[in-house]
């Protein structure tokens, strides 16, 4: 009996393993679409495509797009849009990359976050929109998001929203312990100590190592760890901005002043509601999440400008935000662009603002109606004023790696060790740098420190 079963088991296991890896390997095909010149599509072509109509598939997880799609279809009855949620962030990129590699099932429009866009642009997986006349939109969008959609002298997406950073804080906690809302990171560390001392259950913030957050703070501090020039890439976390971040955050880690709770977990939502987590420095897209995810704390939270590295400074950074892109494999480029234009430049912008999104167009950011809108959740505060100012003050010169998606995925392998062991944050950043350089080199980039 044994001699019969065991080989079968062995074979089965080997085969199952191979089958599993073959599944993952399905995306392994080559992508030879490199270096194509942008297609020239005039406004007339776009209009003609709209009149003719057709079917569009849109991959996006942004909830406010649902209404935009509805309105668009009502306005153009010939167009039929299939809005698909193919996963949030990385899940969707994986699906998109697999579809692109397989050459079938590629959507006509895909949502891509700014940090991931260079990767798609480099592989020419998404179309350069210059040919559609996107170059004329320079003044339409605020500078931060606009620079985020450019790579290799092309425009690879239209900004959909943006995430200028602000500090959200639980005013009840701050009042209870008589702590001033910090305006510099130094004060922030001080406030963290005071709060945690007053009540060991209260932490200034939660953090278990978040690549997007760390890079945003380095960005705000004026750091430029990534320098990208085509396929020449530099990764170096020893510049002043990165060092500043590392030194400040090291204090919070050393004194256990950060709640070891991962963002978006159940514990996190509870912590935001109960006052265990007193502040949250993040993008201006957060209010909608507060309203839906932490209803219990309505009226307790407020927004404030992001704490500064220099006293009296106004520097800010972006955290999150995404664009709409047209994958290279789409055969409906003109029609897809018509939708992009409607959603991100046209009437769709206001629809999405009404739905709680934070816009990327200058006009919307400067409109009185937008600036004066009162947030019931923040006790009637006109929070958009703070966000809009932050959008104006985003530090210049930041760029993400053309393989940031991978780099972020190994953040916890490297920098994350500083959160659970004696490894200094500085060393963690160094090993992140090394691992990123190693990967970049393997992928054919010329990478140096």
């Amino acid at each position, binding site marked *: 009996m*044994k001699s019969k079963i065991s080989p079968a088991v062995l074979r089965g296991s080997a085969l199952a393993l191979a089958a599993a890896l073959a599944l993952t390997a399905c995306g392994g095909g080559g992508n030879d679409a490199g270096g194509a010149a942008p297609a020239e599509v005039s406004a007339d072509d776009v209009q003609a495509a709209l009149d003719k109509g057709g079917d569009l598939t849109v991959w996006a997880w942004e909830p406010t797009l649902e209404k935009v799609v509805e309105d668009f279809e009502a306005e153009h009855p010939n167009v039929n849009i299939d809005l698909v949620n193919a996963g949030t962030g990385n899940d969707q990129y994986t699906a998109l990359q697999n579809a692109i590699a397989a050459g079938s099932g590629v959507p006509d429009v895909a949502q891509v976050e700014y940090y991931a866009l260079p990767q798609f642009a480099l592989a020419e997986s998404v179309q350069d929109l210059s040919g559609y006349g996107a170059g004329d939109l320079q003044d339409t969008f605020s500078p931060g998001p606009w620079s985020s959609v450019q790579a290799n002298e092309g425009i690879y997406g239209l900004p959909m929203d943006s995430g200028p950073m602000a500090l959200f804080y639980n005013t009840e906690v701050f009042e209870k312990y008589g702590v001033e809302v910090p305006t510099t990171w130094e004060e922030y560390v001080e406030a963290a100590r005071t709060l945690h001392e007053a009540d060991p259950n209260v932490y200034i913030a939660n953090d278990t190592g978040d690549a997007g957050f760390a890079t945003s703070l380095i960005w705000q501090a004026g750091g430029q760890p990534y320098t990208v020039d085509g396929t020449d890439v530099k990764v170096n976390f020893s510049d002043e901005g990165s060092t500043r971040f590392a030194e400040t955050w090291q204090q919070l880690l050393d004194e256990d002043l950060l709640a070891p709770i991962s963002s978006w977990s159940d514990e996190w939502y509870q912590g935001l509601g109960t006052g265990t987590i007193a502040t949250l420095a993040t993008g201006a897209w957060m209010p909608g999440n507060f309203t839906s995810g932490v209803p219990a704390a309505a009226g307790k939270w407020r927004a404030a400008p992001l704490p500064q590295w220099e006293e009296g400074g106004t520097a800010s950074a972006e955290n999150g935000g995404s664009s709409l892109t047209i994958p290279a494999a789409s055969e409906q480029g003109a029609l897809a662009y018509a939708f992009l234009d409607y959603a991100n430049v046209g009437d769709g912008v206001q629809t999405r603002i009404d739905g709680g999104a934070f816009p990327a167009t200058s006009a919307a950011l400067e409109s009185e109606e937008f600036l004066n809108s009162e947030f019931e959740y923040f006790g009637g505060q006109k929070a958009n004023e703070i966000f809009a100012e932050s959008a104006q003050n985003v530090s210049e010169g930041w760029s993400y790696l053309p393989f940031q998606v991978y780099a972020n995925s190994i953040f916890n392998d490297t920098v994350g060790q500083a959160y659970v062991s004696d490894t200094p944050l500085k060393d963690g950043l160094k090993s992140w740098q090394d691992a990123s350089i190693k990967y970049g080199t393997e992928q*054919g*980039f010329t990478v140096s420190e």
Partner: protein
Amino acid sequence: MTTASPPPAVLGTQPKPAKRAQKRPQKRSWSGWLFIGPFMAVFALVFLAPIAYSIFLSFFRNQLVGGNGFVGLANYSQALQDPQFWSSLLRVTLFLAVQVPVMLLIALLVALALDSGRLYGKSFFRISIFLPYAVPAVVASLMWGFMYGTRFGLVGNINSALGISLPNPLSPELILASIGNIVTWEFIGYNMLIFYSALRVIPKSLYEAAEIDGASQFRLVTAIKLPAIRGALVVAGIFSVIGSFQLFNEPAILQSLAPNSISTFFTPNLYAYSLSFSGQQYNYSATVAIIMGVITMVIAYAVQLRGMRKES
């Protein structure tokens, strides 16, 4: 093992051997293929083709810059020198060395207790011990993950109720043991069932003979039961070896709760997964998976050989 002995070769007489030799194999092969054809087609499609494709993939390298190219065995030499790969292999080996014996021993004890006939409410115990196996691994990991929470989880509750401070099960030092606990909980019932069914087929006459000889219960176990179920033990051992090397679900689920404790190369499968889905290194991922497949086969085969040698 059943062997299909050929029918006595006395059918024909000496003449026309050539003719029969021509005809019969042809007939046989056609009707035979008709029966196994569907299986072979599916087998080739879902088993052989993916393996062949993976091996094919492992000889190439597709870069973000520079595209796809044949690299020969470069992926293999890279994998064999890859400290992350070896650390993941070492981790599952440690897991195998500690968790599997513990799990199999408990499963064996439970099976022996059930089989002894001295247990009240036998079928209740049997089903309740088996039940965790029916819980999907993903659900089990989530459930345990919540219990492990030091803030709002069971561990947190115990801490605040008793005013103590239990070590965090999700810390880097304890995470492997915590995963071992989940896996043990999941698979004791499964292994228990394998052992129990093997125990049930032991002929009653052996026990009667032993009773006449005045053997104790303990002697009954060591002299009759254990030797009789050695085959089942080897099978369960092989299953466990394979399961350990393929450890994936539990760490993958717990990763979101303990991102700094479970790295992207925590287990070989998790490593292959991250290489594929975060790094788009499909070729290298295929290489890692093939190497792991070979290692798993070798070790499982070694377990089988050892199990058989003891018996003879």
